[in-house]
């Protein structure tokens, strides 16, 4: 069966999703979804292991060889991404049961649909990563996007509907732009297979059509990954979605979009064309810096902690784009390892917030006063995630910041390195505001003194929190593999 791993990665959740929908509401549905997520994680781990040992794995769908058939192609970069998404998917699924059963106002009969949608979203995300076919990317993008609109709209707050609607509009425009870009490329080359596209593009690179395709892809993907100033859909979507959904999407969806960006601009167009001829970095770099700065400052002024973290996500995406626009092995390593590390820290933070809102029903700063004393474990996890977000040594967040600064210094961009350090201080400010409120301020009048969050929520949260610490010390996965992926993308590695 092992030769089928690439396709099983997608098929397992795809089959489990309708099965979930068919099952009667109850514990069994969650169990099925949980087992599915665990299986996905297992498959992803096996794939990564095999890729690291043997190199690129290629799988021809339906037995049709590439470039005629659809090819699933796994190399270091996407095996690593698969692991991130599958791991977060599994951890958040463990977290989701309590949230779905007790927190979201969803009638019992509708609960199986939540799990089905979640699994579909996972299918889409995994599919985007695993596929080696440009059009297939679009198909899976739509699967994941449509299901994520649904997931967001489930939020308790009525504003979740507006947020989901805005996300739908912006996401659809992004997907359409991507489709137009792919269409142009198909017109010019007659192929959709990524490797084949990469081989045929140089012959037609100097045409208006290809340049237009490049522009459409830039904007389309930037919309999906919430690059400043195209991020405006993100804060509300993250703030009003259910906490489990926010944790899942914040840790995976934008990361996968960044992976797509890497795939298109490094593998298909090639670094030489994207950054040498088209000067993509001239667009990405200023937007990344502006995004980092602006979103960090906005985060400082927020009073809804969830929204604050959403803006912080925009800033963190800026760091990744900054790493990419350095166009060096170190810079790319920073970006790719930050994909992993940011998934860990934001997962932790949003799940900790989920615990808070589960008990006290709100995550605004004034309501969270004094929470540290009532929920020491929850806020402990939050602090760890926060430290990682700031980039304190011995946490995962430090690893990527370190590479980012190193990469900037390699290019001789001192001001950029300083800005990264300075914006880390901004992160200190907004995380400190929460910590200060939670630990040093008296609880507001009239808030019921409930206890610590249930174990079913704490265990997944702490799993990720500890992962933040573990990967801050053992960097063989988040930095080691990231470097291999970076070398593979730049075509300089073994």
């Amino acid at each position, binding site marked *: 069966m092992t030769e089928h791993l690439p396709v099983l990665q997608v098929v397992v959740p795809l089959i489990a999703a309708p*099965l979930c929908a068919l099952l009667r509401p109850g514990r069994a549905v969650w169990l099925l979804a949980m087992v599915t997520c665990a299986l996905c994680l297992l498959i992803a781990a096996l794939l990564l292991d095999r890729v690291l040992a043997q190199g690129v794995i290629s*799988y*021809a769908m339906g037995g049709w060889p590439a470039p005629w058939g659809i090819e699933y192609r796994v190399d270091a970069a996407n095996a690593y991404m698969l692991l991130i998404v599958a791991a977060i998917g599994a951890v958040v699924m463990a977290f989701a049961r309590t949230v779905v059963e007790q927190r979201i106002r969803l009638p019992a009969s509708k609960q199986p649909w939540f799990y089905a949608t979640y699994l579909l979203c996972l299918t889409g995300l995994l599919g985007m990563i695993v596929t080696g076919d440009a059009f297939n990317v679009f198909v899976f993008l739509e699967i994941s996007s449509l299901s994520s609109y649904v997931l967001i709209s489930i939020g308790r707050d009525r504003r979740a509907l507006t947020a989901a609607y805005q996300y739908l509009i912006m996401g659809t425009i992004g997907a359409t732009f991507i489709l137009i870009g792919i269409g142009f490329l198909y017109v010019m080359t007659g192929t959709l297979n990524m490797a084949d596209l990469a081989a045929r593009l140089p012959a037609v690179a100097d045409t208006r059509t290809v340049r237009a395709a490049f522009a459409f892809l830039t904007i389309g993907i930037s919309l999906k990954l919430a690059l400043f100033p195209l991020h405006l859909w993100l804060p509300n979507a993250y703030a009003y979605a259910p906490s489990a959904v926010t944790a899942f999407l914040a840790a995976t969806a934008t990361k996968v979009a960044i992976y797509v960006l890497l795939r298109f601009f490094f593998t298909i167009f090639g670094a030489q064309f994207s950054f040498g001829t088209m000067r993509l970095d001239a667009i990405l770099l200023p937007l990344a810096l502006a995004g980092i700065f602006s979103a960090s400052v906005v985060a400082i002024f927020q009073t809804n902690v969830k929204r604050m973290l959403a803006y912080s996500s925009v800033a963190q995406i800026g760091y990744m784009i900054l790493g990419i626009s350095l166009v060096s092995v170190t810079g790319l390593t920073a970006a790719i390892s930050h994909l992993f590390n940011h998934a860990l820290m934001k997962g932790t933070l949003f799940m900790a917030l989920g615990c808070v809102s589960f008990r006290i029903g709100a995550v605004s700063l004034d309501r969270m006063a004094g929470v540290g004393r009532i929920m020491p474990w929850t806020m402990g996890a939050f602090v760890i995630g926060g430290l990682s977000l700031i980039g304190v040594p011995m946490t995962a967040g430090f690893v990527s910041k370190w590479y980012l600064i190193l990469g900037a210094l390699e290019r001789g961009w001192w001001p950029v390195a300083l800005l990264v350090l300075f914006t880390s201080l901004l992160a200190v400010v907004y995380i400190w505001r929460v910590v200060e409120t939670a630990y040093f301020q008296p609880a507001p009048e009239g808030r019921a003194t409930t206890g610590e969050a249930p174990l079913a929520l704490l265990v997944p949260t702490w799993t990720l929190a500890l992962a933040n610490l573990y990967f801050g010390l053992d960097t063989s996965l988040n930095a080691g593999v990231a470097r291999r992926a970076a070398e593979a993308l730049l075509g300089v590695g073994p």
Partner: protein
Amino acid sequence: MQQYSVPRLITKLLLPLILLFALYVQFHGDFGPGGGFQAGVIFAAGFVLYALVYGLDNARRIMPPWLLRVGVSLGVLIYAGVGVAGMLLGGAFLDYGVLDSHDPVHGQHLGILLVELGVGITVASVMISIFYAFAGRGR
């Protein structure tokens, strides 16, 4: 619509034809233009027409929501199941050639037929579900 007999009559006449056409598009898909997506939509359109003329309650009686729910899932399962079957029989995912142990071409016919059927069922069920959801608002 209860009092307009002309539309009701014409609907009754048209409905079998629409459904038949849907089935034609469905099963002709592997030779000519057509396939599961189109067939599913045409099939659903027939029900939408029925529901418009005869009322949502009647439509729900004929095509109850639980059936739709099963249909939505079943279609995807058929599609993925065929793929997995190919895999279990020793080919790649969605490799229809191995479905018939004697004649790969026959196997491919069977495979594409089943896959299109799965797509058709899901699309039809989803379309009708969406219509129900919209039409059912405000009740």
